[in-house]
């Protein structure tokens, strides 16, 4: 038996479609972000483009390329990765919950006034980074 994924490639046109999709989506997001900040259009559009580029090109690759290059595990839900992901998500949830409780207590005691949007963005970043790092740590420990 051999691994067919090792030699799988998408047609060249699909790579071009993925890049085109990523570019169009990035520009669209940049224009929307820029339009909502007309005083600093180019700065806002640039930041929007920077934020949108990675997910947009990834989405393009997912739509046009990975169907040809990634082998789908027939029993993916029984693979160990799902267990790792659940462990990481559970750990990250507890971390975020604990962090939120501690921050709330600190803000109450010191009467700090923080913008809710900033807090929400920090929580999103923290939970994503926490879950990602936990997954990598669990994976590394399991395969060592």
């Amino acid at each position, binding site marked *: 038996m051999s691994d067919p994924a090792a030699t799988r490639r998408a047609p060249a046109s699909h790579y071009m479609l993925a890049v085109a999709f990523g570019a169009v989506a990035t520009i669209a997001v940049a224009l929307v972000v820029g339009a909502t900040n007309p005083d600093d259009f180019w700065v806002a559009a640039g930041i929007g483009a920077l934020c949108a580029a990675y997910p947009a090109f990834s989405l393009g690759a997912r739509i046009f390329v990975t169907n040809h290059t990634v*082998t789908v595990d*027939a029993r993916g839900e029984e693979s160990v990765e799902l267990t790792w992901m659940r462990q990481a998500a559970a750990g990250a949830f507890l971390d975020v919950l604990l962090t939120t409780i501690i921050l709330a207590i600190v803000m109450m005691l010191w009467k700090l006034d923080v913008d809710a949007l900033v807090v929400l963005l920090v929580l999103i970043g923290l939970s994503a980074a926490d879950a990602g790092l936990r997954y990598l740590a669990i994976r590394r420990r399991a395969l060592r």
Partner: protein
Amino acid sequence: MKNNLAQRRLDRDWTQADLAQSLGVSRQTVISIERGRFDPSLPLAFLIAKTFGCTIEDVFTAE
């Protein structure tokens, strides 16, 4: 659970990727099962036994 999956795989001269492909799971899953760090679900255990033409008890034993 302990298991003799690695030995059975080697007896057939299969790589971990070969077995993973045959079972429809990732190679990391096969590695984890062989090292005893991941207990497969019952359907997957049945499939492993069927792949090697034996019973689940022939492959897996309680520690």
